[in-house]
């Protein structure tokens, strides 16, 4: 069964360092998302991406964050200068097409720990 894959599964970084989280969405999907979940809290929307551009972003997604689809398969989230409060689980999700009104498919997440 096709799945969304994320790497790394866990990254530990020092405050102020840049981090790139990678996602490979399901191959025929066109819409991509990043969500964040601080430990024990709810899953929060960060950004949606379609046709090589951001279609919506939340207030959490400030200038420190950026997303990119550098090739036909990867979808990345970059945090330029990490802060302690960026420590969270980051989930990538994807869905097929504009007319599809169903499930968002989530990856297993990348745990980011900022020291």
């Amino acid at each position, binding site marked *: 069964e096709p799945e969304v894959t994320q790497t790394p599964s866990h990254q530990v970084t020092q405050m102020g360092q840049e981090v790139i989280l990678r996602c490979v969405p399901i191959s025929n999907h066109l819409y991509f998302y990043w969500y964040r979940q601080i430990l024990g809290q709810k899953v929060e*929307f960060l950004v*949606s991406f379609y046709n090589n551009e951001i279609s919506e972003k939340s207030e959490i997604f400030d200038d420190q964050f950026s997303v990119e689809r550098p090739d036909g398969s990867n979808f990345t989230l970059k945090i330029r200068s990490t802060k302690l409060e960026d420590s969270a689980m980051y989930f990538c999700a994807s869905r097929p097409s504009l007319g599809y009104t*169903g*499930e968002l498919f989530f990856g*297993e*997440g990348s745990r980011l720990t900022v020291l």
Partner: protein
Amino acid sequence: QQQVKQSPQSLIVQKGGIPIINCAYENTAFDYFPWYQQFPGKGPALLIAIRPDVSEKKEGRFTISFNKSAKQFSLHIMDSQPGDSATYFCAATSSSGTYKYIFGTGTRLKVLA
């Protein structure tokens, strides 16, 4: 208006019990309401979902009840099992926008053997 309120925060039931988790929303543009199940260290996985044109949907032991006028929906787990112990999130989205999900705060369910 974008919030989805979920209760209770945690729930403990005996095996075979019927835990009920409730969610409420405000945005009438929401037209798809999924429930996700999350095990520790894993990503959320879709359990069941409903659209507002039906009042109930059943899949196996999981049932969603939907009250459009009250803007509420709930998840019932019949004959709950210890393997159902997980965190459950309700969510809502509008098919007219970017289809981002607004998640509830989650309910940690523990089913005792």
